[in-house]
């Protein structure tokens, strides 16, 4: 243990702790702008400068390790003066449009400017006049607002290894860019939106569709049918000062109705349906002896990543559409027929924790009914804005039930929102369908939690099923690179792999409320597991509406109609000529 004093406060920390972490432990908040607890410290902003007695100059608290006996001061008159000046330099280059900015109120630069009482700038302000890149389906890039902290680059390059964006240009003209002469829409960007949630300002944000959705709701000719993804129900409350992980699904149903949505279904229903389809696919492969591993297909960020970087494994990816697209296709067919509404009059709306879902909905092959499966995708944040615009006191809502037909769900469906959840849900069903026995313990703890890679071997009818769960695309890259090598040499490393593009799974998606750190992701996942534990039905194959759907419409899992509506195919994307 090291003993040091920070602002006259004694603190003891482990060797290897940075000054910043030591200060946190001492209850002292050192201002930062480029630092984020979830990623490698970058040391670019200079806001965390501290004075260490005896050391020359100032030190960056975020990348300087604490030493025993250090006497540190964090807010001397000189340090406050320097930091104010630094902030002035940043603000002089930043557009003065806070009131119109998507991150107004949640902007780290704005908060620091307020904290340091920046009332006027001694520098002349300038604007950069850069074009806004809204070419990607999920993400908008506005480099006029970029402060160049490098978090998004760190996340894209190293946490996700998508490598869609990096620094471009020099000096004051440095911007974050997908490269020369190209835009986000035509590059390797998978729209995961992790750059968005780690951006401290409004330089990267979701492609907004709130206005379109209002238009659909307000058009009396149209019938709007909505679905809500698992991870949204434990996160939307945060937008209304509730705790991360608090289950607010009944309030969401009610809010959607109050907004004017005609029918409210639940993506958890189609999560259960996915298990029936994917579980069947898996059992078929078990009988046929492969091809293994089967890889889940719920996460559209992962799908584009796989199509780009692992084309050899395309046949390993489950042909199942994601739950969003399955329910979308059924809304335009089964629901349309049941309610005798012409599908062209139905607007299929989904509320997702995800920016890649906007890309997925716009994939040209996602129209098996002859109509787009999903017309509009709103992120959790966008729905919150609609609710506020409508003056709905979300936290005060009592909550209602959703519309029948495609909204019933089990505990297995709800844990889809957390890393390992799809695997756990699939195991519950595969085990019981294969063995005909009831599982004693439904909790597969080995696949839960935020560990990078989770593996297990599950006995199933005398066979050992090797499974792996990864979240965050760098972990996926590591695992799949190994899998690819093993397959080349004739081995079968795993039978079944779950991949989620974002760390923590969908609870940490690019459309979730800001803050969206690992802490929030963990709490949200806890919320989902708590809901699962408390549910009377926790296995997808016991979902009564799913059973009814097969009986009344689809006939059987993996059947002809299922294949037509609920399954899809993937194609190789060349990283260099996308």
């Amino acid at each position: 243990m090291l003993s040091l004093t920070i602002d006259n406060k004694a603190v003891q920390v482990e060797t290897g702790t940075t000054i910043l972490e030591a200060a946190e432990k001492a209850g002292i908040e050192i201002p930062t702008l480029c630092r984020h607890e979830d990623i490698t410290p970058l040391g670019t902003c200079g806001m965390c400068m501290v004075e260490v007695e005896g050391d020359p100059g100032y030190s960056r608290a975020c990348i300087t390790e604490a030493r025993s006996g250090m006497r540190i001061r964090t807010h001397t008159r000189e340090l406050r003066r320097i930091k104010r000046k630094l902030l002035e330099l940043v603000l002089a280059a930043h557009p003065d449009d806070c009131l119109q900015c998507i991150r107004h109120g949640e902007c780290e630069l704005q908060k620091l400017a307020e904290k340091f009482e920046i009332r006027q700038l001694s520098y002349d302000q300038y604007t950069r006049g850069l074009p806004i890149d809204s070419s990607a389906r999920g993400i908008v890039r506005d480099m006029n607002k970029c402060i160049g902290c490098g978090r998004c680059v760190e996340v894209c390059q190293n946490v996700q290894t998508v490598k869609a964006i990096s620094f471009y240009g020099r000096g004051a003209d440095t911007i974050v860019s997908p490269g020369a002469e190209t835009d986000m829409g035509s590059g390797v960007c998978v729209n995961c939106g992790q750059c968005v949630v780690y951006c401290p300002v409004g330089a990267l944000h979701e492609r907004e569709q709130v206005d379109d959705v209002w238009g659909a709701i307000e058009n009396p000719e149209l019938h709007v049918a909505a679905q809500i993804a698992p991870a949204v129900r434990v996160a939307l409350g945060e937008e209304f000062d509730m705790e991360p992980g608090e289950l607010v699904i009944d309030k969401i149903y009610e809010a959607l109705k109050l907004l004017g949505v005609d029918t409210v279904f639940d993506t958890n229903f189609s999560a259960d349906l996915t298990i029936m389809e994917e579980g069947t696919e898996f059992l078929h492969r078990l009988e046929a002896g492969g091809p293994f591993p089967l890889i889940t297909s719920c996460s559209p960020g992962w799908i584009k990543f796989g199509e780009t970087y692992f084309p050899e494994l395309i046949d390993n990816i489950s042909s199942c559409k994601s739950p969003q697209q399955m329910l979308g296709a059924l809304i335009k067919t089964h629901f349309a027929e049941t309610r005798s509404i012409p599908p062209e009059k139905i607007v299929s709306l989904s509320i997702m924790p995800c920016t890649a879902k906007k890309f997925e909905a716009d994939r040209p092959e996602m129209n098996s009914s002859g109509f787009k499966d999903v017309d509009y995708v709103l992120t959790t944040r966008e729905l919150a804005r609609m609710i506020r615009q409508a003056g709905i006191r979300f936290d005060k809502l009592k909550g209602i039930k959703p519309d029948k037909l495609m909204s019933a769900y089990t505990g297995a469906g709800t844990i889809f929102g957390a890393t390992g959840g799809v695997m756990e849900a699939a195991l519950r069903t595969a085990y019981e369908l294969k063995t005909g026995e009831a599982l004693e313990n439904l909790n597969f703890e080995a696949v839960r939690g935020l560990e990078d890679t989770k593996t297990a071997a599950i006995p199933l009818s005398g066979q050992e099923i090797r499974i792996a769960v990864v979240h965050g695309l760098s972990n996926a890259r590591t695992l799949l690179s190994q899998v690819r090598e093993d397959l080349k040499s004739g081995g079968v490393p795993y039978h079944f792999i779950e991949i989620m593009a974002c760390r923590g799974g969908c609870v940490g998606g690019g459309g979730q409320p800001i803050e969206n750190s690992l802490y929030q992701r963990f709490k949200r996942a806890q919320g989902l597991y708590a809901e699962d534990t408390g549910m009377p039905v926790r296995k997808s194959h016991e979902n009564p509406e799913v059973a009814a759907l097969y009986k009344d419409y689809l006939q059987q899992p993996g059947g002809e109609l299922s294949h037509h509506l609920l399954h899809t195919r993937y194609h190789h994307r060349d990283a260099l000529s996308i």
Partner: protein
Amino acid sequence: MKRSRVSISSYAMESPDIEAYLGIGGYQGLKKALHMKKDGVIQEVQESKLRGRGGAGFPTGKKWAGVPQDEEIYLVCNADEGEPGTFKDRYIMEHTPFLMVEGMTIAGYGVGASKGYIYIRGEYPAIAETIQGVLEAARKQNLLGKNILDGDFSFDIEIKRGGGSYVVGDETALLSSLMGKRGFPWMKPPYPTEKGLWDRPTVVNNVETLTYVPLILAHGAAAFADIGAPGSPGPKLYSVSGNVNSPGVYEFPMGVSVKELLKAAGGVQGQLKAVQIGGTAGPLYDDTALSMQLDYDSMNAAGGTLGSGAVVVMNSKTNMAGVLDVSMRFFAEESCGQCFPCRYGTRQLSYMARRIASGSGEQHYLPLMRETGEVMRATSFCPFGQSVCTPLNSLLDQFGDEVEGFIRQQDYIREVI
């Protein structure tokens, strides 16, 4: 001037020719080194007291001795000569490239490297071609490549071209660039000698440093250490430019006075006004600079830096507002853009300097510029941003009245018109 054999200029030739080089004693240093133990080579360089000629002045032998054992060790010759007013490395690569390549080979032997890189600045395309020919000629003579001179030591050199960034002259940024990354510097430690290219120990030496190495081996450490200033001995190449009659590269013993150097460069054109020593990040001096001695210790003691040995001369016709503008624009264009203070600070400094020089400056710019430079000194990530205040403050200290006067004069002209 009588040329000592312990000098680069005594090996100079119009175009490189290996036979001619061997004829005037070339590769004697390498031959001698290969008969010594590696430690002996490092010892010899340590005893010569050779200090790095890129600008930092770190003892070369000490750097080499600090390289840990590893399966793979790299040697990098920093030929990314981007310091304004500095063109000594260019002189070496054009006129004595074999000496440099021989120096690299000796260094490779001494530190245990089998692979060397020459990182040549992007603006020197012709030189890259010349060096390619030099490397091929050396390979043909078995002075480079596998089993050099039929011994156990194998060493080869690859040329890498820079992309035109000034900051990449910093060794850590250079290594980032060499590995194919963006040329961002990194915070030391780890030092490149511990963890450099692809995490292997890597020695980065300047062209001039390596070029003196064969002379130390051939003539002995003592012969080198006897020349010039005792604290940083040896001969040194100085680049003289600006308002002198014969700008160029001049080789003098370390510690030569500015006066003597300018005399060698044909004298000042007109009346001397200012001298900038050590590069763009060095301070500006008025004519008191003439008595200064150009070696590391003397310059540091005088509050300046020898830097790369660049001496830029300005005469009385020079408008210091214009100098301020050019200098600040240089920093703004060459900032790597990584850290906030440098990225934004250089932009604002350049803007204010440009406004002043173009006649629309404001009086409050001058204190604001000083303050900005101070904030950058305190908070910039690397020496580049930290050093902007040096030329800025020295210019304003000595020529601030002139710049202020210029701003007032321009105000007056605008009012009258």
